[in-house]
């Protein structure tokens, strides 16, 4: 096999979801569809790599210094939804149920991974939360030990500010049957039970 193709396969095998075997298949498919797929894909990848950057306000990925969500005047600027990464932001945007602003932390506090408060964008969040317009901070972090430790830490950091700090509910998912839920989720669902109607 040619060295250039081998290098391409090695690089593609580093993409999440692709192992060496599937990377080889994908590379072969691209080579067999050079004009139709490979060249336009390479062009777009190059274009995205040069143009996309992290938003200076929220950390979202966009072509401008400030992302489209942050400059959208129709969005509610009194609510910030704090998420771990851009993937979580995209998930909430896909659901189209939130019309406020976002803040991407860049992960959660994790001693094992050596991520302390200084490695996350918490200072920037505190600064944004201090804006007079701000009324609520929604902590949309994972229901894990690290995720909730981060949530409690942020709550401590913004404690003196005149904002309400809320978090996403933990419990039964839509379509979930109680019989198949783990004990932890059931316990959380029972704790967070609400009045019907």
């Amino acid at each position, binding site marked *: 096999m040619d060295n250039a193709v081998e290098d391409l396969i090695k690089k593609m095998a580093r993409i*999440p*979801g692709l*192992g060496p075997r599937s990377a080889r298949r994908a590379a072969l498919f691209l080579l067999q569809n050079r004009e139709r797929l490979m060249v336009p894909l390479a062009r777009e990848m190059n274009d995205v790599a040069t143009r996309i950057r992290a938003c200076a306000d929220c950390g979202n990925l966009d072509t401008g210094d400030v992302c489209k969500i942050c400059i959208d005047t129709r969005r509610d600027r009194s609510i910030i939804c704090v998420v771990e990464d851009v993937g979580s932001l995209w998930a909430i945007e896909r659901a189209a149920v939130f019309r406020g602003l976002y803040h991407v932390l860049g992960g959660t506090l994790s*001693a*094992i991974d050596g991520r*302390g408060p200084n490695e996350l964008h918490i200072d920037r969040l505190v600064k944004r939360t201090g804006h007079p317009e701000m009324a609520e901070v929604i902590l949309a972090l994972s*229901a*894990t*030990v690290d995720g*909730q*430790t981060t949530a*409690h830490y942020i*709550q*401590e950091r913004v404690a003196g500010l005149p904002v309400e700090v809320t978090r996403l509910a*933990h419990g039964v998912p839509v379509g979930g049957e109680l019989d198949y839920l*783990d*004990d*932890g*989720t059931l*316990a*959380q669902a029972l*704790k967070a039970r609400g009045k019907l109607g």
Partner: protein
Amino acid sequence: MTRRAIRCGTWITMPEWQADALVLSTRPHGEGSAVVTVLTAEAGRHAGLVRGGSSSRMRGVLQPGNRVRASWRARLPEQLGQMQLELVQSIPALLLDDALRLAGLSSICALLDGSLPEREAQPELFVGTNALFDLISIEDSSNRWLEGYIRWELGLLDAAGFQLDLLRCAASGATDRLAYVSPRSGSAVAEGQAGEFASRMLALPAFLGGVACNRHDYDAGLSLTGHFLARRLFGAHNQDIPAQRRRLADMVTGIYGG
């Protein structure tokens, strides 16, 4: 241990065990797996590879503090081996809303993970940690679990061979009016025996037999055990005390220290 045949016709012993365990830590391994460290009574602190450990189904099972049923097997004893875990009880799920108790749980797991030798039986520590998990799971606005937590840290020091002598005064042998603990020897010192060194002594909380000190018992207790954990347990290996333990101490100082 079970015996299994290999192809050439000879028999070898392949190590394996099944036990109740507590999850201490999880590290991602490759794309889909995780290296999980658990604490069991007989196998002690033990790591193993959990295939599919990064999947959304398994992520909840591998949270630190979970009670699980663990099965481990390897071809040779010195290998990392593969582990299968089944959730028995999710302790973190009961504590997610409570910052202090969650910090306590994280601290317990981090201390065990960072200080225990691998694969050495810890029957007493396992029982003690399970009891502490039961205690920490109980909602209690006065945070009395912290007393159990501090006693557990003394037990951890004891298990590592650093027992503190809090029953009699190192200077006079007296068993009453104990007020301090020597930061060097780890022995109790009676109220009038500290002399000019009183300001350098660690306060002995009332629930450990000390006369009332000018700090809250929980704050004083965590300072006491924290000193010896940092100096004897982690300092001996040139390691810092885990960040989770520092956070717990900071939170307790924030609540009770003022």
